[in-house]
Structures are given as structure tokens and as C-alpha cells.
């Protein structure tokens, strides 16, 4: 078991050296084959390119959620079973993140989904058109935001359509 943990710790050390220790806000290894990082918004692209270089080629998905202080976007990268989740904080007023489709082409749809359901704008994304919600979806309603409860969305939809 310890050898597995040592491997995880090496990955974290290499990432810390890569993007500087101040921008690697925190890390955690809850169980074997799982690593959690949280990185500052500016260093996101460097962290992702470094991890892809290390073999984390498969992007499982991108999760978006509304935490206590603003929106959080989590990139789940994967290498042969070892899952590294990279968390990035984004202020709610101005949710803009650089896109990573140039590094991992597979991220196109995931970014569109987070954009649509949570309102995070991915700058440089080839086509951020709606993927999921219907066209007549009222502007500015992001279903996964805390302030929009189910009933409110339904009322707005019925009023709209």
C-alpha cells in the first residue's frame, strides 16, 4: 500500500515543482487510486498540460458545482485506473476559464455542458452553442445554480413557453 501512496506523492511533488507551490492550493489522497488537487485559476492550463504529459490522457469528465465561495469546476483526469481530480475556483460574478480542448480534444462536449448548466464561460472554445437545454430556454437560467430551485425553473418555463 505504501508504494502506491509514494507514487501518488511523487506525482504531487512533480506537479508542485511544475506550477510553483503557491498556486497548488491543496492536495489530498483519500484512498488508493484517488488524488485531489485544487489549483489557482491562472495555472489551470499549465497543470493540465503537465498532467497530460505524465500520462493522464483520459479526461473522464468535467464537473461543475456551486460551492460556498463561487463556482467550482473539477477536471477528472485518469491514467490506467489512477484518478486525479483537479479543482478550480471561479468567482460567481465573472465565471471565465480558459478552454482545454486544445490539449484534450475530448473535452468539447463536457465544457459545453458545464457552460449550459452552470454558466461558466470557456474562452477559446470552438462552439459553445447549447447542447442540452431546448432553444426556448429562458436566458440566464442556469439550472444547477443554487438560487434556481426546481419550482422556480418550472414556473419560469411554463410562463415562458
Amino acid at each position: 500500500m505504501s508504494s502506491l501512496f509514494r507514487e501518488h506523492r511523487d506525482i504531487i511533488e512533480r506537479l508542485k515543482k511544475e506550477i510553483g507551490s503557491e498556486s497548488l492550493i491543496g492536495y489530498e489522497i483519500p484512498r488508493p487510486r484517488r488524488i485531489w488537487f485544487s489549483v489557482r485559476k491562472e495555472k489551470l492550463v499549465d497543470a493540465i498540460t503537465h498532467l497530460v504529459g505524465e500520462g493522464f490522457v483520459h479526461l473522464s469528465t468535467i464537473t461543475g458545482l456551486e460551492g460556498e465561495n463561487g463556482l467550482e469546476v473539477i477536471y477528472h483526469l485518469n491514467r490506467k485506473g489512477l484518478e486525479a481530480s483537479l479543482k478550480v475556483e471561479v468567482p460567481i460574478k465573472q465565471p471565465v476559464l480558459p478552454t482545454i480542448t486544445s490539449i484534450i480534444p475530448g473535452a468539447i462536449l463536457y465544457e459545453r455542458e458545464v457552460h449550459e448548466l452552470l454558466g461558466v464561460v470557456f474562452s477559446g472554445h470552438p462552439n459553445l452553442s447549447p447542447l442540452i437545454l431546448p432553444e426556448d430556454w429562458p436566458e440566464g437560467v442556469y439550472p444547477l445554480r443554487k438560487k434556481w430551485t426546481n419550482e422556480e425553473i418550472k414556473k419560469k418555463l411554463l410562463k415562458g413557453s
Partner: protein
Amino acid sequence: MSSIIKIPFGPQHPSFKEPENFMFKVDGEYVVDVTPRIGYAHRGIEKALEDRTYILDLYLVERICGICSQAHTTCYTQAVEEALKVDVPPRAKYIRTIVAELERIHNHYYWLGIVAHEIGFETLFMYTWRDREIVMDLLELLSGNRVQYAMNMIGGVRRDITPEISSEIMKGVKVLGERMEYYKKICSNERTVLTRSVNVGILKTKDAISLCAVGPTLRASNVKRDVRADDPYAAYDEIPFHAVTYDGCDIASRIATRCDEVIESVEIIRYALGHLPTGSIEVIVSRLVPSAEIVSRVEAPRGENMHYLKSNGTDKPERYKVRAPTLANLTALCKMLIGGYIADIPVVIAGIDPCFCCMDRLTFVDVNNDKSWGWKGEKLRRYGIKWYKKQ
């Protein structure tokens, strides 16, 4: 410059599929560009999951998709158990693995029938779906229901496998294995099937990896990646098995991959039934889940199924994200479609075994004129074949 025309491929599948919708830009016969508009089945499940307690969520997670419901519930229960730091008794793990493999057999037979239906091979469609009834009866015997088998519970499994049931499963599974060998022989040397599947829907290894494809679609492009082997869950670390890969990168090798996986599942079930540990099948857990962030992954029949749970100490999840395998394969699907013939579109789409209700997405392209409606999926299939004719 020959004219590029846009074709909306309708969101309706009269015979069985869920609604999906693609906008194709076509240059004569070749597909130049694909923009998926999916989301007909967007029921807002992720939002609903946050309003209900963990127990009620179990029933909702199970009905994300009719065919891979065991995969979704296993993933969900594992996430909550990990947050509760509860260890499931070994017998429950084995039962979960057995039901997961039975579901894989059920899914692959269903898929083989669908592909045969897409290329018009009616008799094979009828035969595979007749043999699928054997595994449906086994699942009904085991869990009382043919499709939504509600086997999993937070902390274990609901029903036990009695010796009679396990002997019944042994018999049924043996027949399923032999039948699949027979179908594999048909699909690999029946001329009409080969002409419609060899070199159709090519996904090279390099693209499969860069576009993050998952499951049999990935393994058919010669990438040995299987959650059961890499990140073992339930009882997969104790059961010897090997991931099946083929290097054909086309529909024919996807058919072969899935046929081998069924034969592999038969071995897994036999081994699991043979080494079924004794003991209780569930553990009582508390309703309040301590706050934690969990990523749980499962190898669904269609590919890697990933759930993310953020709990906050109450009895309702703060955020629950579901990423079904079909969404991962969708970018790869667009890659396969571009450059191919229009007539092969239905077969290629069926190739990744799409389950659009998994992806919770629903969208709609406007209708070209008021009289006719958007093309139905079946019309897509028939249109594809007709367009082929215009070569």
C-alpha cells in the same frame, strides 16, 4: 465547389431507440461535419437528485437508463458507502458482480440484435432477441423484474442467491455462452454482415485515446483500458479475467469485442458462483452521510460510468454528477461519422450502442417545412441506405 447541404437527422426512433439528433453537413455522399444536438431525454435528473434523500435517489439513479441500471446503482451505492466509510460484506460484493455481468450479457445480446436490425438482417435480430430472453428470465428469477432489477441498496444487496438460483444461472449462462460463440462465427464470416461492417466507422487508436472514448468502442481500437481491471471495484479484484481488445478499429471488431466480452462474462459468473463467500448480504447504515467528495467509477456494458458525489453531512447530496458512457463516446462517434458514407450513419451510430437517455440530454432541430416532420431515426436508417444508392 460542390454544394454542402445540411441534413437534420430526426430525433425520433419509431422502433426502439431514444431520441437523438444530429445535424450533418454533407458534400454529395460524404459526411463533412457533424454537430450533435442531444438532449431529448433531459429530465433534469441531476437537479432532482439534490432535492431527494439518499434512499429516494437510489430509485432515480436506477432509472437513468433502462439497460445499464445495475451499473448506475452499483456506482451510486459505492460512492455513498465510500462517503460513509462502510465496508460491504464480501457476499454482497460477489452478488453485485454477478448481476453486473448478467446485465452485460443482456446488453450485448440486445446490442447485437440492434446492429443486425440496422443492417437489415432480420433473422439474426429475431434469433439474438430470442436468446436474450434466457438472460431476462435469469434476471427475473434473481430480482423479480426483467429490466429494472433494484438489486443494490446502500450498504449491500437486497436479495440473496439461493443454491437453486445459482444452479439455474449456471445452466442458463452455459447456453448463452454457446449461442454467442455461434453468433460470433456468423458475424465474422457471413458475407453480407462483413460487407456492411468491415472498414465502416473507423476510429483509429490515436483518435480513440485523444477523444477519450470508453468501453468496447475504445477496446475495439486496440486500447487495453477496462475499469474492472484498472480500478477494480465490487469483487473484480478477486476474480481473474482479462480485458478483450481487438485492433480492427471498425464495426466488425466492435462486434467481435462484445461477443468475446459475453464469453468472458460467462467465465466471470461461473467463477463468482463457484467462490460465493457466505455471510450476510447487507449492513445497516446511517441516513446522514458525512461530508466528503467521492469519485466512483464502474465499467457499464457501454463503457466507463463515472459518478461524482459531494455530500454535506445532511441526508441529501449537495451535488451529484452523472457521466454516462455514451456522452464520452459521442465525440468519438462524430469523428467516425465524418468522412464516412451517409448510408453507414445508422450502423455507425448503433456501433457505439448509444443510450441517449443516459446522457440526460434533449434538444430539437427545427422542422424544414410544416408538413413533414424532422426525419425519424428509422427514416435516417432507410434514408441512409437510399442515399447510398445514389452513388
